């Protein structure tokens, strides 16, 4: 809806190159970006023999944080211990990859005039309420992602392409529950 509204104003701005705040450009075609994302995932398989991920980066940072507070605790917990890198966190593949995600997301948005400090929310939710739900949802996702050994990136996308049974189970579990939960909370984005 917003993208179709943005188009005429973008056309107007093209005639005035000195205009300050250019209108955000519409998003790219989902099939085309999906195809390119597939090639990026394939490149990861070809170059380093592994796929994309996000949860692993959070887990590495968590392990490093625990280790900084109490090395003993980190060493005695299998989950954290196996995520500690002797050479430091910037040698961890997924941490570097997620740093790239930040850089790539930022640059892409900057080029398309889509950088704005904002809290994205439905009209029925206040800013505090929206941020609380975002953080709470994040906590629940964190629990689920540890149990499932990955998230939408490491399991659904990567494991999905590798035809892993657990990854497809994760996908059905995640989207099934998300549809149900989103329907119960459907007023949030109204």
């Amino acid at each position, binding site marked *: 809806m917003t993208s179709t509204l943005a188009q005429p104003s973008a056309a107007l701005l093209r005639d005035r190159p000195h205009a300050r705040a250019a209108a955000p450009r519409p998003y790219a075609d*989902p099939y085309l*970006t*999906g195809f390119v*994302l*597939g*090639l*990026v995932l394939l*490149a990861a*398989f070809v*170059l380093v*023999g592994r*796929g*994309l991920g*996000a*949860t692993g980066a959070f887990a590495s940072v968590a392990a490093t944080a625990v280790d900084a507070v109490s090395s003993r605790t980190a060493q005695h917990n299998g989950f954290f211990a196996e995520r500690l890198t002797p050479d430091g966190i910037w*040698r961890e593949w997924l941490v570097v990859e997620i740093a790239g*995600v*930040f*850089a*790539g*997301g930022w640059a892409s*948005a900057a080029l398309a005039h889509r*950088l704005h400090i904002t809290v*994205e929310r439905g009209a029925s939710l206040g800013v505090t309420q929206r941020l609380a*739900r*975002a*953080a*709470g*949802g994040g*906590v*629940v*996702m*964190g629990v*689920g992602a*540890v*149990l*499932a050994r990955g998230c*939408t*990136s490491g*399991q659904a*996308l990567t*494991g*999905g*392409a590798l*035809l892993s*049974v*657990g*990854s497809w189970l*994760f996908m*059905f*579990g*995640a989207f*099934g*529950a*998300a*549809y*149900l*939960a*989103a329907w119960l909370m459907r007023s949030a*984005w109204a």
Partner: protein
Amino acid sequence: MIAPFTEFGLLGPRGALVAAFAIGIAFGACLERSGLGSARKLMGQFDLTDLAVFKVMFSAIVTAMLGLFWLSRLGLLDVQKVYLPDTFLLPQLLGGALFGVGFALAGLCPGTSCVAAATGRVDGVAVMLGMFAGVLATGAALPWLQRLYLATARGGLTLPRLLGMPEGVVILVVVGVALTAFGFTARIERRAAMSSRTSDNGV
């Protein structure tokens, strides 16, 4: 056989980290370009007004899956050396369901929350902080959750092995299902747009 490059000595540890940053940049740019750094756009998947999540995800899965299959067929890539995540049936189904509830509540998933945060969305930062806390707490509690965490372990199990079918057949079925679903998406989005217009008129 030349790929994975790291396995055949074509890429060292330093090169792998450079690749990690480059691949991350491309990954983040793809998510941002398609609008998946926006919680509102992501949630369109669940009220069926905008199926971009499905379109992006399944185009990517199908592309990478076919690429992997053909590179392996042409003798360029050794699939056995690509890291396949182990399957744990119960924790992955249960963890997936929990993850889905969190996803619907947060409006963003872990990867897209990073893009949201990088593009100035404060809700993305909140999701990241929550996610970090959740991973930290679950990691700390994991010694007490071992029975669930390690339940129903199946090792590196793939759909072709589970079904006893040739890989090519399973891939053909996945591609067929994806293409059929793509065909339906336009109709679903049109119907959702129509019903929202009629409800808008009622207000």
